[in-house]
């Protein structure tokens, strides 16, 4: 956890959104809902 603490110093506003952004995942991109879960994660 010690190394993660440094992320608290990132130059973000600190203002937390009231809801979590849904983003965009097109079903034409993903072949299934499971694929959508993966696509939401950043590609390597």
């Amino acid at each position, binding site marked *: 956890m010690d190394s993660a603490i440094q*992320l608290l110093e990132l130059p973000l506003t600190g203002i937390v959104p009231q809801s979590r952004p849904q983003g965009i995942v097109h079903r034409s991109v993903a072949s299934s809902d499971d694929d959508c879960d993966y696509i939401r994660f950043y590609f390597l």
Partner: protein
Amino acid sequence: MSTLTTTAIKPCCAWFTVNHLCNLQCRWCYGQGQSVSPSSNMDMKTAMNLLTLSQSIGIGHITIIGGEPTLWPHLIEFNQLCAQSKIKTTIVTNAIQFSDDEFWGRYVSCSNDTVSVSIKAHSAQLLQSATVSSRYAPMVKGLCRAFKQFSVGASTVYNRICAEYILDIAQFAMDCGARRLNISPCTPAFFGGKSHVEYVVEPAVMVKHIVSIYPKLVKITGGKFSLAMKLPLCFWPKDFIDTLVGNGQITSSCQLRQRAGIVFDHDGYVAVCNSLTDCPIGKYGVDFNDGNSLLSHLNSPLVTKLYDRITSYPSTKCVDCEKFDMCGGGCMMFWTSFKPQDCIPGWK
């Protein structure tokens, strides 16, 4: 400071980093700088424990990443275990190992539910420039096998080494049989307490390039491509975003913004993102032992404070932005290097 009305963190999907050995070692990979031995493997006992733990909190889908997970010695055994446990799995691979006839025979008998294939280069020359490998022919064989067997798309990273060849890579992917192509910008890597941007294409340069080649990308892929929006949407021309959305050629935001996933490293450390495994937030056997104690740890004051910070609006221009629900403010990895308040233009 405002707070979320629902603060509970309950992951619905997990990533298992099963090894750190890779047969390509792409120069832009976030794994290159991580402080872990390339020979580190997740042992089967740890994998079983983490699988049981994941299942106990309702996780039904595990994505297996590395390193290069096809080199993980326990892959087939783990796949069998997941199938018995009715856990779906995706493997993220460069597909080179699929060219090995003996391995391929064993793998297809107990494969993952789906495969995410990552393409690094379209030519032997670029492969040698971008990686430590000269195994071009095996790469092509493995890619073709994967696309034929699983009928899936490919992904590729837009970085300083490959950017000028992105159309060639797109053509190569389609020629190998990819159903579609996802292009994902390289993001800063964070390790050793520092952000590293050597392979990140300067955002304005990338935007101008991608917009200019869009018609050719459509032609090569038959429109079957998508662009991962790691930059905030307002970095791009409005009409370009509208076109991508209208044509289903865009993905944005990620599990971190939704607090919907969790990443386990080979030794049981847990991170909020696979680009941040050098900054773990806890460890199996130390901070948690089962599903309930993991959820307690994820919702502890310090971890919640961390999530709140890294998912906060990157700029005050995002607070009232009509597009924020679609955008999410971009990948937070960019903000390890760039100052969002200075560079986010806002959606005008």
